[in-house]
């Protein structure tokens, strides 16, 4: 009896497209680059999202105006705890837009409300307050428009 060898064709092994070392280095670079970009974006978003700090000079110079109602609006705007301001947000927004649209201090309260609803998903009536804040901001006197430019797209994103 005779044994004949049989040869079976196997697929040619595929050479790796990149050496293991190059792949490791590439992944390392991608990881570091991603980390740097992520940190930069996170920092920028965090800075943009921060409530505009109340100017200390403004609060110190919060002198009586002779109008007790305006004084109270101004106090809420820059001195009152945010929780107190949010409790009367609808009234505050209507009052500032209709009566005190030219008062710079009062408008700081609108910025605080915008910042709060953007940064606090748990805020009560968030979508509704965001929408009315957006309308007030979009119709703000032109001199105030720059204060809200950063907030408008973020308020629009709240559903």
């Amino acid at each position, binding site marked *: 009896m005779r044994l004949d060898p049989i040869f079976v064709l196997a697929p040619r092994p595929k050479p790796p497209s990149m050496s293991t070392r190059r792949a490791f280095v590439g992944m390392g670079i991608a990881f570091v680059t991603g980390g740097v970009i992520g940190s930069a974006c996170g920092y920028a978003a965090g800075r943009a999202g921060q409530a505009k700090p109340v100017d200390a000079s403004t609060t110190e110079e919060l002198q009586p105006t002779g109008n007790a*109602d305006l004084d109270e609006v101004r106090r809420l705007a820059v001195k009152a705890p945010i929780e107190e301001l949010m409790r009367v947000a609808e*009234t505050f927004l*209507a009052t500032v*837009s*209709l*009566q005190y649209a030219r008062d710079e201090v009062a408008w700081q309260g609108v910025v605080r409300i915008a910042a709060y609803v953007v940064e606090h998903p748990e805020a009560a009536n968030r979508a509704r307050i965001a929408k*009315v804040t957006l*309308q007030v901001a979009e*119709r703000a*006197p032109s001199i105030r428009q720059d204060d809200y430019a950063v907030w408008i797209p973020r308020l629009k994103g709240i559903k």
Partner: protein
Amino acid sequence: MRQGGRPGVRGPTTAPQGGTIDVEVGTNDPFVEVSLGGEESTRYPVDPAKKASIPVPPVPPGTLVIISIGTGLRRKVLLVEVVEDD
């Protein structure tokens, strides 16, 4: 229809485009003030039965109509969202 508002002014929370917003006023204010968030507002009289009828402003659906009575921080506010007419 669902009603909203604080004591002082009560009415629907939504209103159709081209419709009317009927509100009840719980104070002796002679008019309600209607705005869209800007400085401009329109006043509508309150009738002796303490009701006011407000035409829905020509605005896109989703817009809030701000209806209020009083002044300053004693102001009572009702927000009504304009919705598409069915």
